[in-house]
Each structure stands twice: as C-alpha cells, then as structure tokens.
C-alpha cells in the first residue's frame, strides 16, 4: 500500500502539487488521470524519489519514504518497478541484459538462476526467444513488454506505469493493459498507472484519481466515472465523440 499525505511541490512561484492525499491499495490497479500539465508526472516523480517534495509524506507500507536517507531509500527502491512512457530500455544492452540488470546489481543470483528467471519473465510477457535482440530491433509494444519484464524482475511490491499505451495501436494497447492487470494480480503489487487513455481506464482500473491543477478533485472506480457529474471530469472523460456515445448508451 502507498499512502500520500498532503503532498506539496512548487517550482519557483508555481505550486504544481497542492496538498495531495490518497491511498493506493495493494493488489489493485490505481489510475491517476488528468490533462497534460496538471501535475501527474511531477506527482509520480515525487513518489519514486526523483523529485523531492516540499511538504507531506509518501508512505510505502508504514515506511516514510520522504524521511529516509539515500541508503534506506535504496531498500524501498529495490521493491519499486517502473515502466516509462518510452520504456527507457538501456540501448547498449540486449533484452536479456536489460531484464537481468536489476538482478546483477541487487542479487547474488548465479548466471543460471538469472537465466532461469529471465526465461520465466519473458514467457509471462510473451517475448520468448527475443533474448538477444537489442532495443533498436524491437517494436513499440515489444519495448513496453521488455520494460515491464525489467520492472518485475525483482518481484517488486510497487509498480509504476507511465502512459503505457502512448504510441501503440489499439490491439497492442489492450494487450499491454491486460499484461499490467495480470502482473498486478500475479505479484500482488500496488500498481499506479498514469494515463490519459480512457480505454485503459475502462479496461483495467480498480480505483481512479482525477487530478486537476495539482489537486485530486475526484476519486472513484470505473463504473462511477461514467456516472460522475463532476464538470471537469466530464469534460476530460467525454472529450471524444466515442466516449459521449458510450455515455448515452450507459444512461
């Protein structure tokens, strides 16, 4: 479980996060949705420690991340997996080396153990036989799956997924969504997904937090989001003709 308590962050005179509080529950796929520039990415960077908060606490299962020094944070970080928007695979490494990288750095696995774990993960993400390919030889969907494979290599307790479907076709997007759902259930992770994509939200979200101007202005689940009367949320969710038609049918 991840708890945020009154998270505040400013850059110069601009306050980007204005006291965000919420709980992301274990075993659930928690979505943070909102327009671009509303603070989603900054909040995520604060949660994983890439940006320091000005005020507030980020608590990973009773451990206050904001009060830890670098070495204590390292322990928490080995339990965090993250899939970046562009996958952020290491260009100079093959698929296999990318996946094994966290194992090399943080475990005492032998080469045989690493290879066995790699094969397991590659099977889970549907990339068997792609071990020796370099990121430049992979399609967008394969890069995301490799990124997910690297993120779960150490059986993390927390998974962050940033825009999992950006740049992907609808079928591949659904496949990645299902993979995130499946891995969350399988590893009992606390998964936090940052997305604009309403298809993903409807497909796999357990809880949804809508951020606007640095504040969570609405929280709910995928059923309640379609019934919500919140004007800002409605503008965001039903921005497309397709979603408006769904809403009409839902009514």
């Amino acid at each position, binding site marked *: 479980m991840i708890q945020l308590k009154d998270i505040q962050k400013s850059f110069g005179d601009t306050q980007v996060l204005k006291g965000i509080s919420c709980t992301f529950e274990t075993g659930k796929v928690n979505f943070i949705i909102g327009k671009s520039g509303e603070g989603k990415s900054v909040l995520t960077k604060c949660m*994983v*420690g*890439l940006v320091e908060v000005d005020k507030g606490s980020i608590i990973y299962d009773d451990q206050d991340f904001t009060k830890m020094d670098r070495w204590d*944070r*390292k*322990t928490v*970080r*080995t339990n*965090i997996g*993250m899939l*970046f*928007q*562009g996958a*952020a*695979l*290491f*260009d100079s490494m093959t698929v296999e080396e990318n996946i094994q*990288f*966290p194992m*090399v*750095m*943080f475990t005492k696995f032998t080469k045989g153990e690493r290879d066995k774990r790699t094969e397991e993960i590659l099977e889970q993400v549907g990339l068997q036989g792609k071990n020796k390919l370099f990121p430049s030889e992979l399609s967008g969907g394969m890069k995301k799956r490799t990124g997910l494979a690297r993120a779960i290599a150490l059986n993390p307790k927390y998974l962050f997924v940033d825009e999992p479907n950006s740049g992907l076709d609808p079928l591949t997007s659904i496949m990645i969504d299902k993979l995130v759902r499946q891995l969350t259930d399988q590893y009992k992770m606390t998964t936090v997904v940052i997305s604009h994509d309403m298809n993903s939200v409807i497909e796999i979200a357990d809880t949804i937090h809508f951020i606007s101007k640095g504040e969570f202005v609405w929280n709910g689940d995928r059923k309640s989001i379609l019934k919500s009367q919140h004007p800002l949320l409605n503008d965001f969710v039903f921005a497309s003709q397709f979603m408006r038609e769904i809403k009409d049918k839902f009514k």
Partner: protein
Amino acid sequence: MPIFSSIGRYSILMGRVFSRPEKFRVYPTLVIREMDKIGLQSVGIVSLLVLFMGAVVAIQTASNIESGWIPRWTIGYTTRQSIILEFSSTVVCLIISGKVGSNIASEIGTMRISDQIDALDIMGINSASYLILPKIIAAVFIIPFLVLLAMFVGVAGGASIAILSGNVSFADFEYGAQYDFRIWDVAYSVIKTFFFAFIMTSVSSYHGYNTQGGALEVGQGSTRAVVYSIVIILVADFLLTQLLLL
C-alpha cells in the same frame, strides 16, 4: 552568476561520482569496456595525426635553419622537444576531447532524455557513479599510454620525413633526438595527461548528464562539452606548465 552555479553543480556531480558505488564488482567490466572505447578506438586517429605533426615540425624546423652556425641535428632536437613537451600531450588530448568528449556527452545526454538515467535512479543505483566513474578511471589509465605512443610515432614521423626529404642525415637526426634528453620532460607530459583525461571525461559527462530537452539539446550539449573541455584543458596546460617546468 551562471559560472559559479555550473561549478557548484559540477562539484556536486563529482561528489556523487566518487561516492560509494552500489556494487563494486560490476565496475571492472565497465572500465575495460570504456578503455576500449576511449583508448583503443583512438589509437588509429592519434597515430595518424601525430605522425603528420612530427613530419610538419621537422620540415618547418629544417626550412627555418638558414644560418650555417646552426647545426642540422637541431631538427631532431626540436622535433623531439615539440612532440614530447606539447604535441603528444596537449594537442593529442585536444583531439581526443573532440572525439571522446562529444561521444560521452551525446551518449549520456541521450540516456538522460530517454529516461534511462531516471530508470537507474529509480532502481536505487547511483547513476552518476555507474555511468561516469568507469569513463574517468578508464581515461586516466589509458590516455597516458596513448600519449607515450604519440611521442614515439611523432618523433618517428619527423625522422622519416626529415631524412627522406634529404634535410638531415639519420645520424644527425638521431644525435639531435638524443641530445640533452631529460626523462622529466616525458614525466611532465604524462603528468599533464592525467589531468587532461580527468577534465575531458568529467566535463563531457557533466554536460551530458545535465541535458534537458530533446535531440537538439543533446547536440548542443555535445558541442558545449567539447568547447568547455578544450578551454579548460588549455587553462590547465598553462597552470601545470607554470607549476611543473618553472
């Protein structure tokens, strides 16, 4: 003042680079890989350039000796001194800065803009140490060997051209090349190289590590890395020469 801000950020980055690494046993492999990229892959270009530098120094010296009072072996002496004292260390390091510095800055800059550095940090790895320390160690270790090679090739190049063009006999060139030879000159040159190697790798890494934006900024960062490395190397050359030779 932006310059003080840059110096401060550079110092903080170096503090992170030299802090305790997460897993020391992965570093030897990284250092060897960097030695290959920085050192061995520069052998060809360094040899070629310094060969011609030696030849040009020899020809220029020969063409400037008009007085009969100046012996022909001066060509060997001047070529040796020029190559050992300045060309093999400073000029070679400036050349390597152009090649290696832009390579380092663009490599790290690309990793920055494609979130690969963030990925390392989120995993709990000290990205500054993991990415930069192996490059600094490799450069400080391998570039002095390149400089020693450059000394040999440069003097050999000068000798070949001077002798083949008939400006000096082999015996005269050999005499000049050995005349008043001081091993301290070689040591001075190698000592300078340690500093230059550190400057070119750390300054280039700093510019790559602090890249923000996209492909355009990676290119700009790469150019800045080379320009700053060259300027700082020349300033350091002046200071070290004052300190070591006077």
